[in-house]
């Protein structure tokens, strides 16, 4: 009984004692999950081998758990994938990013065959994608601004053979890591 009472007293006294051995986890900078930023572009059917378009705007605030103050972010990977029943041959293109009211900037360029991109090509593992750092910086700024700024992707590219049907797409995913601490 005496031991239990002592234990209870000690536990009650804990908040009053400065246990410097333990950092408050809410003050710790941690790596935060960021949902990928994605966009899909239709390769228009017909005779025109050029394609392009603008994807819906993304609100970066929806990509990170609320309740954290972001202190930094970076892009660590980008993937590009082609889907569709037709082989459109050699292709190349540019994906742009516009942040807030700023004019768009090149995020990355890509080139390769349509079938090569049927398997998602990764910036980390493939030479088919080349990153433009200023465009990457724009996305980082969009995520870390207070409040976060809207991000809009657009693309312009060419294929060797235009598709006959509207079922061929180019899909882009941008993977980011953010740092922050709890509010």
């Amino acid at each position: 009984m005496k031991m239990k009472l002592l234990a209870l007293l000690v536990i009650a006294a804990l908040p009053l004692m400065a246990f410097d051995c333990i950092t408050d986890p809410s003050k710790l900078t941690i790596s935060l999950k960021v949902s990928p930023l994605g966009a899909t572009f239709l390769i228009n059917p017909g005779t025109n081998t050029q394609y392009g378009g603008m994807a819906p705007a993304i609100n970066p605030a929806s990509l990170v758990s609320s309740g954290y103050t972001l202190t930094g972010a970076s892009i660590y990977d980008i993937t590009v994938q082609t889907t569709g029943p037709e082989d459109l041959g050699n292709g190349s293109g540019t994906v742009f990013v516009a942040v807030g009211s700023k004019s768009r900037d090149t995020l990355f360029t890509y080139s390769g065959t349509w079938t090569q991109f049927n398997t998602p090509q990764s910036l980390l593992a493939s030479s088919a994608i080349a990153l433009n750092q200023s465009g990457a910086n724009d996305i980082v700024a969009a995520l870390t601004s207070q409040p976060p700024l809207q991000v809009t992707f657009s693309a312009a590219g060419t294929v060797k053979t235009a598709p006959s049907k509207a079922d061929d797409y180019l899909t882009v995913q941008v993977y980011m890591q953010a740092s922050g601490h709890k509010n």
Partner: protein
Amino acid sequence: MTPLRHTGRLLVAVACALLVVAPRLRAQSNFEKTLDQFNQNDVKGYIQPFGDLFGTDMNAGMFHSAEIARTGFHMSFEIVGMASMVGDAQKTYTLNSPVGSFKTATIFGGGRDSLINPKTGQPYYGIAGGFINTPALPLAAPQITIGDVFGTRAIIRYIGIPALSGLPSASLFGIGAQHSVNQWLPVIPLDVAAHIYYSKFSFGDLINFSGLAIGAQASKSFSVLRVYGGLQWEKSSMEVKYTPADVTVPAVDITMDGANSFRATLGLCLHLGFFSIFGDANFGSITNYSAGIGFGG
């Protein structure tokens, strides 16, 4: 220091070890949100050293004598404190990240480490820096040793901390037995015994631990001073289980097997009639020290 104050200090150490995360958190929702950020493998690597050191503590301090009568009355109430040392190996782990493998901080480590992404020139960070800054992970528990029947003595440990201020309850339980080898081999000039010990710890539904230790020990008394030592095989396992309130987030269920599987013990005990004080050093893959006081004979 009076026994009561010494007990209080040891209980502080118990509470610090048992409630290592919870005292600084206002609500479970803060801890939920922090854990939500990490994938399971990252979390395991980050907290594995805590499981290693805690397991080493739990398997320490059970005995400080191999002298067990074939038949007789023995009862001793003891308070035992243990501390497993945080070495350099416990401060970092290898994180397998999308940009490559690199060493980064564990829960005992320093700042967050990073690896430069060769394609972007930007750092990719480990999940977090360390937040327990201590040279050792302490633990303490009261124990009773009682015997001696057919050269066998029981060891029982228990401490229960009730739920308080939104924190779940915690309990530590251990039971074991020492058996005299001398009764079978009286020619041995030392007291020799063998032991087996099982322990359990739980912290709400979040942490469940179990440990098993089997070993042998020897001791020799010189007046009031007793020298003791032993060899012990041990294993431990800690399960950290957490289900986020957000049903779209996967549950965390991590099992960590303790790193320490063997130890050699060397200790001294000062036996002054009804009162004894003892301390030992334990050497394995993790270095551990235990010490305590006992009342009884």
